[in-house]
């Protein structure tokens, strides 16, 4: 194993723990009534965002979903600006205008979370179109849930992406549920077959195995850069929390045993950690130290965000148009 590989692995681990830690803090902010509105936790799905985003470079684009904190962290975002955004503060990535469901991080190629299910499918495909038009070899990854496969837009853009060989990867995070409904009750037939119908190569993969996700992603990203796209990946995964932080009593749609099984037997972080130790890439102590440092980072970012300023009210009519400073002045 080369040194660079070891660094890559440790970064992947770190990024997964950063996502989990971010979410634990976000959930705590909600539970202590310090966060406005609701938010959707990514915990349990870390290997998907990290496995894919670690195969990308900064100029590659992603589009994200209502469950978007994981994608945002994985694509390189900082805790401080993220927590500020969740709390509606001026220093947030979107100056408090977007909040959890609309976090975008232009500097790292994150074109934004989206509160419309499937709403970003056109955007990701357009980013791939743009890369091709402008002669860049950038790739776009479209993250979306199993529930979003019911949106007609997906079929319209997959058709065009296939016709025009666009460098886009459709990454379907199949966490088994859309809101309070099981996937098999809302999606007929096979999900990968949907893409195959357009002649798009499609893969189904264990989304709790960050190495497998990353390996496949690296291959597909390289092939996209060579003009062999688009691709489709269905990543089998699980969300640990409710649909959103307020979805506490959920036994009417899924059992506690099922949740326990995924958490205890298939957790992507626990699995990868064991592998790192077994391979001698990191010791238990080193891993504990890494976890602790991330925890401290997150706490400091939360404290910072709580104390940070709200935007001045004069910002309310800014950014409506690019060329008008105050739309209502």
């Amino acid at each position, binding site marked *: 194993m080369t040194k660079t590989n070891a660094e890559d692995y440790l970064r992947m681990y770190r990024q997964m723990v950063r996502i989990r830690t971010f979410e634990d803090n976000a959930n705590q902010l909600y539970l202590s009534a310090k966060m406005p509105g609701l938010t959707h936790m990514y915990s349990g799905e870390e290997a998907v965002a990290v496995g894919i985003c670690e195969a990308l470079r900064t100029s590659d684009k992603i589009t994200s979903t209502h469950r978007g904190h994981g994608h945002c962290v994985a694509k390189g975002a900082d805790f401080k600006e993220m927590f500020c955004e969740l709390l509606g503060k001026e220093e947030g990535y979107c100056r408090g205008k977007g909040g959890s469901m609309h976090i975008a991080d232009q500097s790292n190629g994150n074109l934004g979370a989206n509160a419309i299910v499937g709403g970003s499918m056109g955007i990701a495909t357009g980013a791939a179109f743009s890369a091709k038009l402008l002669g860049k070899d950038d790739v776009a990854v479209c993250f979306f849930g199993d529930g979003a496969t*019911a949106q007609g837009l997906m079929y319209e853009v997959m058709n065009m992406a296939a016709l025009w060989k666009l460098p886009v990867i459709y990454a379907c995070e199949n966490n088994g549920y859309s809101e309070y409904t099981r996937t098999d009750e809302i999606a007929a037939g096979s999900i990968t077959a949907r893409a195959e119908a357009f002649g798009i190569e499609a893969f189904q993969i264990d989304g709790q195995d960050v190495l497998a996700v990353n390996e496949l992603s690296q291959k597909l990203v390289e092939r996209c850069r060579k003009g062999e796209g688009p691709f489709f990946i269905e990543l089998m995964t699980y969300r640990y929390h409710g649909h959103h932080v307020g979805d506490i009593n959920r036994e009417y749609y899924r059992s506690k045993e099922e949740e326990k099984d995924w958490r205890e037997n298939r957790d992507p972080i626990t699995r990868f950690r064991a592998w790192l130790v077994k391979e001698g890439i990191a010791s238990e102590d080193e891993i504990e130290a890494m976890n602790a440092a991330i925890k401290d980072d997150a706490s400091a970012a939360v404290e910072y965000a709580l104390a940070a300023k709200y935007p001045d009210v004069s910002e*309310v009519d800014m950014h409506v148009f690019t060329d008008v400073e105050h739309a*209502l002045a």
Partner: protein
Amino acid sequence: MRNITLSQAVNEALAEEMRRDDSVFIIGEDVAEAGTPFKVLSGLVEEFGTQRVVDTPIAEPGFMGLAVGAAMTGSRPVVDLMFGDFIFLIMDQLCNQAAKTHYMSGGKLSVPLVLRTNLGATRRSAAQHSQSLHALVAHIPGLKVAMPSSAYEAKGLMKTAIRDNNPVVIFEDKLMYNDKAPVPEEEFLIPFGQANIKREGSDITLIATSSMVQVCEKAAEILEQEGISAEVIDPRTIVPLDEKTLIESAKKTSRVIVVDEGHQSYGITGEIAGRINEKAFYHLDAPVLRMGAMDVPVPFSPALEDITVPTPEAVAANARLLMSGEMIHAA
């Protein structure tokens, strides 16, 4: 009279109509076991089964189109659109299909369908889950639009909507689902096109829809303490619009503010102000004022969101301006 929540009122209206008429069914996302995210429909699937309380995939144009077809062929669908903001996804089925079918077929076909959805900001839900988009559909001939302002209206208007043979869109205020109001036990319907004078007054008329009715009632209380007598009128349906009641009040008080949670520009407030201007011009002592939501996408930050929606204080301040006569010179 007992008090029930707006949520319960809608639930009762649907249950009663479904018991009365087997062709009524509900279709939408997480409407059955989950009873919608707002829990408005809880218990209905237990009584009526999954054939009549139908959970769909997240495919709004699909189930809306399906409902239009079902409505044209003997069923009476109540389509549940989880957030009013998603109306943009179903615009073709609603506006090109449902709204026009009766007209285009020379009266041969009809689409007895109800689309129930919601409006309202200040839930910290940001720009794609907070809009009040009723003006968009009110603009399209062939669609009726109801805007309940309390549990009482929510029940009576829903029952009327289900029995109406036209496509009807109902916008509920999602902040009001847990608000209680007196609602009779015995059956009642509220006819469309009949405004409700919520509070009588003689100095100024406040015309308010849906979420803004409470705001204007509070404004009227503030004004009363200052010796200004405000009349508050709720049109209840904006299509059809009870122009007569609004015009009569405008003639009586000679000053009018129209308050609505849709964006102010090109919205309901401008439409109503225009009609009053045309039909009560010589009776007015001041220009008719419009107060809508600020013309910006709804911001997430509480510091910004709260200033985008009319408040009782802002309505009262404008009322004072109209009373002082200053607006005449400003206009």
